[in-house]
Structures are given as structure tokens and as C-alpha cells.
């Protein structure tokens, strides 16, 4: 395939206007020692149909979640993506534009981001939202950096029940930013109340947590508030039709993986890092923020605002290095949230949690399978323990029978339900589990 439109005549004419004899002359000032004189060891280009055949044969060697029934969770979920979401977010005027540096030609993206930010605030009952970060774990990292800046402290306390991927990310980035996340313990799959002293920048709780369990968020955040520590909640956006919002639970900063808001599973990305916070921290927020203003005629319009926080203005003093973000995923989230509406969001939360409760009852309590935390309430995901089998072996044998479950976390097998899973599919999973353990 070729996307450069030059005819041979064009090339000749343009070179001649430049007073050059050949394309090589464009590189004449490059030191000859670094010029390569051999073709790249990458196959020659192919036609579009050959390219699609190659990609199709690669994709055909994957077992996707229309083939396997998806009960997998661990931070990415098979919620339904309505047709309208990508028919709108995929509009090429939006998809092929870039960061709205020239706002007069970018009103579509800017208004969509303003509406996204507004809906994230509605959802979380926090005061401000930015226009997207990379994904859930990197949003948490940025939230921690905000908390450190706001408090001038550097200790970071993380509940043991926070997804290990989030904690691993904190460990990686903490080496640069100068902190080491410290975990505080859990009992029965729920975080306990940590000791917070005046050196603690933030306390991090995930609710629902990595096992799907509901945490006593208010109590933990109360302990943080008494010490002037920032309270950070990792939340599931689709739990907020039925669960109390982070703002009400005392969170100062709330971060989430926004994949569930109309974004495809896509083997882990592109996803959406959500961040909401209180107005007092807005100048410490990372990333783009869209704001409303007026033009010279007094008409309403939108711009990127508070740019003095950002790397292109502030350079090494910026709140973050983020530039390219996940804008289009935020646009998809805006379409999706408006598609759901308040009733849809509540129904979706009820459906997911009801199906998970049914699945837990169907799967646990017989054949050597039990709930890892039998007395702890959960939302749409729960943890199973096996008396005789390693959970990885159960997971592998269920794949052979057409079911995707997992991941395995601390010896427990996670099972998640979305509104898409039918009673029939849950019963079939129960039967398959019986067979593989048989």
C-alpha cells in the first residue's frame, strides 16, 4: 500500500525547484557514516488485500470473547459496547484530529471533553475531572503525585486488597518520584484501618477491591482526613449506579479504569484513565482540562484551560509529563454514559451484581469449591478457592470447555459477571466446573 500521492513528475519537478538532482541529495548533509546503503530487513510492502489476509490469519489464531464465554475480570470487563458509541466516537473529524491547540477548529473535541468531565463529576460527586489519562494504574500514579505535591509528604499507604497491577505501577514510578508504596493489611478480604501519621501523603483503597469485595471506605478515609492525608479511591465507574460515590465516601481523589465505559477489551488497550478530585487540588491535576468560555462575539465556546500546569508551558516544573492522552476513549465514555443515563446505570449495576451473586451461589459450596471470603459482600466479581486443584489448572481446563475466567490472585480464581452473562451461561459454567473438578 502507498499513501504518498507523488507522481514521478511531481518528484522531479519538486526536486528541480529545489535545485536538487535526486532524493539522495536531501540527505547529502547527513554524515555518510550513519547513512545506510542497504535495504531494511523488513519485507517489501504488500497490497491492501494481502495485508488484510495476513492480519486476518493472525486474528484467527486468537480465541476471542465471542467464542469463549467471558467471566474474566481483574480490571477489564466484557460489558456491552452499544453500536452508537463508536459510530459517534469513530467519526473521522474527531478521530483524525489532535490535541485542540487551535480551539476554533476543535470545538467538537473540546465540547465532548467538557461533557465527559461533567459526567465524571456527576458520577463521582467530586468537583473536577481532567480530560483523560492513560489507564487506571497510571491514573493512580498521577493521583499519588498530586497528593505528594499537595501535602509535601512522601509516604504512600496502599491497602493490601488493591489490584497488584496498580501497586506494581506505583513501585515502578515511585523509583523516579522518590517513594515506596507501603501496604496495610486486610482481614477477610477487606482492608483494615491503617495507622496514619503526619508523614503520610495518601491512603489508597480500591472499592470494590481486587477480589470484588466492598470495603469500609468511609472508616479508612476518616482516619486519613484526621491527619490531613489525601484519601484516594480506585473505583469501578459502572458500580456507581448502585454504590455510594467516592465524593460521598470522603475521597479527595478518585481514579478508575474507564475501559468499561464503552471501550473495547482490545487485549488491554487503548483504555481510559479517569481522574476526579476536589477543586482545591485542580492546579495540581495532570493532563488536559477543557473549559468553557466565550469568543469575541460573546458566543459560548471551549478551550484547553489551566495550561500553566502542563509540560508545554511549565517544562520541568509541570504537574506531569503527559501530552498525548486517551481523548478518544473519553469521547466514547461520554457517548456511553449519556446512552446509559441514570436509570441504565443503576440497572446495569443491579444486573451485574445480581448475576455475580447467582454465579457465586451456583459455583461455590460443592465439589471442593468455596468462596474465599464467604462472609464478605461483593459487587460483580468474587474469589473462589479450590480444595484439591491449583486454580491455574481449573482456569486452563475451563478454557478447553469454552469459558474464560480469572485472573488468579493470591491463590484465588476470580470470576466476574457483567449484564451480558445470562443465567444459562452461568449454569453452563457451573456444569463445566463440575466436570473439570469431577
Amino acid at each position, binding site marked *: 500500500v502507498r499513501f504518498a500521492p507523488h507522481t514521478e513528475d511531481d518528484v522531479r519537478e519538486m526536486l528541480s525547484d529545489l535545485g536538487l538532482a535526486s532524493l539522495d541529495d536531501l540527505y547529502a548533509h547527513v554524515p555518510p557514516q550513519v547513512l545506510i546503503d542497504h535495504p531494511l*530487513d523488513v519485507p517489501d510492502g504488500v497490497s491492501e488485500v494481502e495485508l488484510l489476509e495476513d492480519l486476518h490469519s493472525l486474528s484467527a489464531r486468537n480465541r476471542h470473547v465471542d467464542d469463549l464465554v467471558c467471566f474474566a475480570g481483574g480490571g477489564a470487563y466484557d460489558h456491552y459496547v452499544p453500536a452508537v458509541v463508536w459510530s459517534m466516537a469513530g467519526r473521522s473529524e474527531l478521530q483524525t484530529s489532535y490535541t485542540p491547540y487551535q480551539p476554533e477548529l476543535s470545538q467538537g473535541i473540546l465540547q465532548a471533553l467538557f461533557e465527559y468531565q461533567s459526567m465524571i463529576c456527576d458520577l463521582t460527586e467530586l468537583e473536577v475531572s481532567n480530560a483523560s489519562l492513560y489507564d487506571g494504574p*497510571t491514573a493512580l500514579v498521577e493521583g499519588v503525585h498530586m497528593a505528594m505535591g499537595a501535602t509535601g509528604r512522601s509516604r504512600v499507604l496502599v491497602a493490601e486488597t488493591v489490584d497488584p497491577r496498580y501497586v506494581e505501577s506505583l513501585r515502578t514510578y515511585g523509583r523516579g518520584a522518590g517513594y515506596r508504596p507501603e501496604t496495610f493489611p486486610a482481614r477477610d478480604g477487606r482492608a483494615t484501618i491503617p495507622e496514619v501519621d503526619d508523614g503520610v501523603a495518601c491512603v489508597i483503597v480500591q472499592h470494590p477491591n481486587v477480589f470484588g469485595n466492598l470495603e469500609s471506605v468511609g472508616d479508612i478515609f476518616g482516619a486519613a482526613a484526621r491527619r490531613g492525608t489525601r484519601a484516594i479511591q480506585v473505583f469501578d465507574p459502572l458500580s456507581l449506579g448502585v454504590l455510594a460515590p467516592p465524593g460521598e465516601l470522603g475521597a479527595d481523589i478518585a481514579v478508575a479504569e474507564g475501559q468499561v465505559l464503552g471501550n473495547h477489551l482490545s487485549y488491554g488497550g487503548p483504555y481510559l484513565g479517569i481522574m476526579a478530585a476536589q477543586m482545591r487540588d485542580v492546579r495540581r491535576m495532570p493532563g488536559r482540562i477543557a473549559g468553557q*468560555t466565550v469568543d469575541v462575539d460573546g458566543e459560548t465556546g471551549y478551550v484547553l484551560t489551566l495550561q500553566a500546569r502542563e509540560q508545554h508551558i511549565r517544562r520541568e516544573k509541570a504537574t506531569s509529563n503527559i501530552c498525548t492522552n486517551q481523548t478518544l476513549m473519553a469521547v466514547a465514555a461520554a457517548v456511553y454514559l449519556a446512552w446509559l443515563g441514570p436509570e441504565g446505570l443503576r440497572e446495569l449495576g443491579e444486573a451485574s451484581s445480581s448475576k455475580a451473586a447467582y454465579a457465586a451461589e451456583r459455583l461455590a459450596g460443592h465439589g471442593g469449591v468455596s468462596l474465599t471470603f464467604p462472609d464478605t459482600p461483593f459487587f460483580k466479581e468474587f474469589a473462589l478457592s479450590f480444595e484439591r486443584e491449583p486454580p491455574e489448572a481449573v482456569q486452563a481446563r475451563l478454557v478447553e470447555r469454552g469459558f474464560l475466567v480469572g485472573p488468579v490472585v493470591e491463590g484465588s480464581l476470580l470470576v466476574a459477571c457483567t449484564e451480558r452473562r445470562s443465567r444459562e451461561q452461568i449454569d453452563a459454567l457451573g456444569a463445566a466446573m463440575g466436570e473439570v473438578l469431577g
Partner: protein
Amino acid sequence: VSELNRGDGDRPEAGPVQPDTEAALEGTVQAPRTGAAVRTGDPAGFPKSLRELSRPGRRASSLPSLDVPKAEIPEAERRANDVGLPEVGERDLVRHFTRLAQRNYGVDTGFYPLGSCSMKYNPKVADAAASFPGFQRLHPLQPDATVQGALELLWRLERALCELTGMAGVTFQPAAGASGELTGLLIMRAFHAGNGDPRRRIVIPDSAHGTNPASVRMAGYEVATVPSDARGLVDLGALEKLVDEDVAGLMITNPNTLGLFEEDILGIARTIHEVGGLLYYDGANLNAIMGRVRPGDMGFDIVHMNTHKTFATPHGGGGPGAGPVAVRERLVPFLPAPVVSRDPQGRFFLDRDRPRSIGRVHGFNGNFGVLVRAYAYVFGNGGDGLRAVAERAVLNANYLAHRVKGEYPLAFDGRPMHEFVSTARPLKKHGVRAMDVAKRLIDMGFYPSTVYFPLVVEEALMVEPTETESKETLDAFAEAMLQSAREARENPDLLHQAPVTAPVRRLDEARAARQLKIRW
């Protein structure tokens, strides 16, 4: 206004409408507010916000009926009231977002010469492939045995990127260029720490993109800035004075941010390597040299690529991109875990057993959907095609620079590569600034170039046409720039008032920050 408004060729067709600008300025023609040549029948005041469109009880969503007993959420955890989301029907949603799209300008709308962003055409075949269920419907935590095709795709892409850059191994986790920078710097940090030789400073040129210094700080280093010389290149003498054994490394683009090839790159590399530092290649400008020059051959140790620039994955209004990082053999052990690997039986797997890895920099496997598009671009073009891409990108920039430099002198004398930086300084005496030129270009149907960047150039206009634009488009844009310069002398008000044909006129950014309204 000019013959430009009547030209066709492959000039943007779906861009803002082109009314008689002078008449509009005199108030005889109302500047349109829809920003597109469509008449919608909307009442005045559209587009409203989704909140204004909301009506209690209206909804778009439908969910499967509940086929299991309803579970109760414990009262203490329950949300008391419904969320204040808008209540709209699907038709409302479609018209709303269609209006928003029509008020936006993308590469599919027209020429988008935003310097340093490589706004090239995004092939549709890449989008088609990314939406195959076998890619789009994969859960990130599926067992490796069920995703052999996805892993092979990444493995093949890794091999091609290594060949293109002269490196030995790749991580696909970084979600964007800046994320790649930070990943590369953390690798540098781990490398020096592993040698028991922690160092404190990273050298960057004064023309560098803002993400470079910001990443340096996030990696726990201090910024040491090396000045550009009269050629717009790194001042080698100043660099030699600046470096010592406390320098962990140097970050640089080549071609640099002024669009010029760093001709002393081998001397720069030697200077840094001699004190035990590493060389980081910011791949922002890789489009200029594919198949011609490899970062590895210039002495670089770590390279990030921006797939949304070099490999034509759509920019998405600001993202998503992807920022894979490639490194030399001796740095491969430090790459984020897991990495894609192949066992002796030819099976692909995610290798998690990486004791010297810097750890995880992304929740899952990076922006896979973007990487599928990058694969389509790399293997669709092929090795021969990628070289042709680079050559035509450089040809286009040189041709356009040559056409406009009479009115907009180049900031530096050297031959531009894939982009050029010129200055609108000569127009200043007429009271016209670079921003005014940019806004006037909007009225002529183009997205403007980057303005006021790099910071080291006064009244900078940074123009990157990319290889996917035809000579006709470049000629039309050159004419528009030259016309703007003429107008600056004859009727500067045209530039001061611009734009008048966009969906909105100039916006009050100071008010946006002062009277902060960032949600409804």
C-alpha cells in the same frame, strides 16, 4: 476574497465554509455558526449541551431483562440517589455528536501541517484490522495459549521496529511518547543503579519538547540544558563543558525540534559515552529518516517511537497513541515486564520472569489496538515503502519551505528535514503576529501550523506537511501563507479579525482560566 477560495484540486472540501470574508467583516454577511456547509434545521443556540437536551424519563439504553434473582446491595454501601447523568434518546445522541464532529477539523477534513505532530493520513485499512473481533474482543488476561496471534503480531512488530531503529528489544507498554520517555529514563536509572553508579543529571537541548524536561523530573533527575549554536544544532563545545560523570544521559531528537539534522551526532554520542552516559533518542521525528538512518548507528542506546506520528495511527483528538521503547542488547534485561517471547517450540508467551526489569508501566499490554494499526502501516508499506515515506516527507517539507521562505524566513540556514521552522517576525512591524497568521489560515480552509514553538525561535511557525500531501495541496497552502503576508502589509485587520469562518471566533482563554468553568 481570492482565487484560493475557488481552487479545488485536493484542497479541503469538507472544511469550514468560505463566505466572503471582507463582507463578513463589514457585517454584511453573518459568519456561519455551524462551521460546516450543512443546514440542520436546529433551533438557534445549537449545539446545546447534553444536559440541556435532557428530559426526565427519556433514555437510549436497553439492557437484557434480569433472569436471576435480584441481589440487594448492603444498605450502608448503597447510592442514595440516581446519578445526575443526562437523559436523552439515541437520536439525540447521534445528532449531538454529529454536530460536534462537524465542528471539528481532522486530517480527513483537510491539510493539517501541525509541526512536530506528523499529522499524516491515517489509512482506513488499519482501522478495519483493529476492529477484527480476534483483536478487539480479546481480554487482556487471557492465557497465552489463547492469544497466539496477538503475541505473534507484537513479536513481528518488535522485530521490524528493532530493524528500523538498530536496537535489540522492545517494550510495548508505554501508552504515548511521554510515557515512553519516562520508561526510557527509568531504564537508564536502573542501568546506572545496577552499576552502583547513581547519577543525577540528564542533558537536553534548549529546543526540546516540554515532555523531555517533565519526564526527566518524574524520573528523579535534574535537567541540564545545552544551548543551540548559530546553526540551530547542539553546541558541541558547550556540551563538552557541560558533561561530567554525574550525567546519566542525553535526550535528543534527530532531526531536532528545529527540523534540522544534528550533523555532529557522532561527536555528541562520543562525548556522552565517554563519561559513561547513555543516549536517548526521542522518536518524535523518526519519520524523516526511516530506512535512511538508524538511531542505533548514530550511537543511541534507547529509542521511543510515536506510532501516532510515524506509523499513521490516528491521533484521536489528543490520543490514544502508543510509545513503544526499543533498547540495545545490554539494556534488554531492564525492559518493563512482561515482554513478548518465543519458546523453542515456537510458541509465543508473555515472559514475566524478568528479575532486573524496571517493573510495570501500564496496567496491561499497552495500547494494543493502536499497535495493530501500526503493524498494518509498517507491513503494508514494507521496508522499501518506509524509506519512500521518509524521503517524501523530507521532500515535501523542503519544497514548502522553499515556496514560503521569501515572506517567512527560515529560523536557521540548514536544510530542513521533515519539517521546518520559519518566523513571522518580518510581519511584526505591521502589527501582525504568528498567531494572526495562524488564524487567517483557518479562514482559508487549513488547520494552522504549530505557532510559538520551539520556544527558542521568535514568532515561530513550525510546519510539517508529511509525505501524504500532494504537490497541489502544498502549493495551495504556500499561496495562503504568501497571501497572508501580503494582507499583513495591506490590510492587517483581516488577520487580526480572523477567523471569521470557523464555528467560533477567537476565544477568551484568559477568562476560561480566571472564571473557571470545567463542568456543567
